[in-house]
């Protein structure tokens, strides 16, 4: 309206300094016109009201005593306290292996690496931790740094392959430490998996559910595209059957019906393992359909080019088709894995004490009546931390792998 000559009305001609001041930013992004200003004020008011309620609850009403009193239960369930050193050892080794793999794969101590090392150090600040716990956390940080440092001096030819071996070795050692071997009075007495619980069990179920269902799902997706009718029909029947059944019914089938089919005296597989099998079979069907979406996005020319240079069907699947198909579905797969992680809470309904199962036993304890809000708030935060980490990692992975798509 009052566009006197020389008055900058167009944003693109605003002087550089004004474009980057806080006030300029506010005006452009939050108060650009009447309607947006109104929306900003309404949103601001809502945030303030919710935040005030939340803070008042967290600092005045909530009885946080329930968390420190049951902290070990939340972390490791019924895992015997006297064997807890094994869990710490598992964590130290995890730190070390992460350090080694980081050196082998990423190769530099970048910001993400600093954040990773900082995690145990920040956890040391949690007020109710004993000095012992803080010391163990410090050892974890040192172990991860040591792993990174030492890996630089290892005479390793194939870095990627070596990293895979380190991870596999770690998983074997981890399972031996957790499960124990030998006699009851030996140095590493067995701990039945049904005693594993809390965060420990939730993470284990999610991790093995994901890593076992992934290859199975990829095979099923390839099977569904196979030229051999028998393989195709079996894959389709499996996928459609599993997708037509809720996870909870598979879990119940695994816990209750399996025994009916097995002959008397057959050594019953551990209940946690049966739950893991159900989760794996369930997730594999969904992975298969997601991967099939990726396979269908590969243009026919890629198959033809692979054939024309003489690659066999197997070679072109491994080197040409799968790498592109999987890359295309990373976001979908990670979404599925996050939902799998949260779905593991269903095992609480078949009498396994994962994070949610433990939470329910705590609030059922007469000593801690009326602490549902506090307990569930902490459980929710724990789930959020791990789910968000997965989603963050997937975005980094996408960016890292996206090079050729430019």
């Amino acid at each position: 309206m009052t566009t006197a000559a020389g008055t900058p009305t167009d944003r693109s001609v605003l002087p550089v300094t004004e474009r980057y001041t806080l006030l300029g930013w506010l005006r452009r992004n939050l108060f650009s016109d009447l309607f947006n200003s109104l929306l900003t004020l309404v949103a601001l008011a809502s945030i303030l009201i919710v935040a005030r309620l939340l803070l008042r609850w967290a600092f005045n009403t909530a009885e946080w005593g329930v968390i420190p009193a049951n902290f070990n239960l939340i972390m490791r369930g019924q895992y015997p306290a006297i064997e807890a050193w094994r869990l710490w050892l598992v964590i130290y080794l995890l730190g070390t292996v992460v350090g080694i793999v980081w050196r082998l794969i990423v190769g530099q101590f970048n910001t993400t690496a600093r954040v990773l090392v900082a995690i145990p150090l920040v956890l040391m600040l949690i007020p109710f931790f004993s000095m012992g716990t803080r010391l163990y956390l410090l050892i974890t940080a040192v172990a991860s740094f040591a792993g990174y440092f030492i890996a630089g001096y290892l005479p390793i030819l194939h870095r990627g392959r070596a990293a895979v071996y380190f991870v596999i070795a770690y998983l074997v050692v981890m399972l031996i430490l957790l499960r124990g071997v030998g006699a009851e009075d030996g140095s590493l007495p067995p701990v039945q998996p049904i005693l594993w619980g809390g965060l420990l069990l939730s993470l284990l179920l999610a991790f093995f559910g994901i890593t076992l269902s992934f290859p199975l799902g990829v095979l099923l997706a390839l099977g569904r595209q196979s030229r051999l009718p028998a393989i195709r029909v079996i894959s389709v029947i499996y996928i459609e059957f599993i997708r037509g059944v809720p996870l909870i019914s598979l879990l119940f089938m695994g816990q209750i019906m399996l025994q009916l089919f097995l002959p008397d005296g057959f050594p019953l597989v551990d209940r946690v393992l049966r739950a893991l099998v159900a989760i794996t079979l369930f997730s594999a069907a969904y992975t298969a359909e997601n991967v099939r979406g990726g396979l269908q996005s590969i243009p026919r020319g890629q198959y033809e080019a692979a054939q024309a240079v003489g690659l066999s069907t197997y070679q072109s699947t491994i080197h040409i088709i799968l790498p592109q198909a999987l890359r295309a579905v990373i976001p979908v797969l990670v979404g599925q894995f996050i939902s799998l992680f949260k779905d593991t809470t269903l095992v609480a309904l078949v009498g396994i004490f994962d994070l949610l199962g433990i939470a329910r036993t705590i609030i059922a304890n007469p000593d801690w009546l009326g602490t549902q809000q506090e307990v569930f708030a902490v459980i929710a935060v724990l789930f959020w931390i791990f789910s968000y980490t997965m989603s963050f990692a997937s975005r980094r992975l996408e960016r890292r792998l996206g090079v050729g798509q430019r």
Partner: protein
Amino acid sequence: MSENTAADEIIICQDVCKWFGDFQALKNCSLRVQAQEVVVIIGPSGSGKSTFIRCINRLEEHQAGDIIVDGIPLTRDVRNIEQIRSETGMVFQQFNLFPHLTVLENITLAPIQVRKMKKDEAMETAMGLLNRVGIPEQADKYPGQLSGGQQQRVAIARSLAMSPKIMLFDEPTSALDPEMIKEVLDVMQELAETGMTMLVVTHEMGFAREVADRIVFMDGGEIMEVGTPEHFFTNAQHERTKLFLSQIL
């Protein structure tokens, strides 16, 4: 030049027929190609040119007639198919490079996997080929970072890495911007001069006139006329050939 060595017939197609459903795409196509000969196939779109050369390395399956490549009969036998494919390079209209691999990896993949070549040796060969097609500096880039002409030259290098006896070109310049066509044609001409047996489907009449030993004109799934470039451009016999040439020239 190679017309004299009549015994060296490297591709023999006899009465090849191909149907897509009810539609007959190839009708009794017969063609014999000598070793080191350059044969250019021309014709209107939908005439079956691409289908014909795609039958030779079994990207399409012919339903009647015989195809014999370098003495190997093309049948359902997978071993025969794989052997013919490893002796036959193919260059596509849309390049079909592998977008998740670098240029160097695109070229070395098949020699390492199929020919079981050592990685160092394969890389050395690949760099030699990239020099030959004129883009050694692009070795570590991804296909998506190259121009169309560069991509097509990488595709040619990828085929040559398998040391094929025959090269099939399926409209190699049709997807290129005009200023990039020449760089690809130059590489093809250089390849022809080294004595490679080539079957080229193209609309580039200049290339056909200059490089081809023989020209094949196809229409409606049939081979209408075969002859030398002089014959074609001065003395075409068939009415449809004349019509096509008058439209395109």
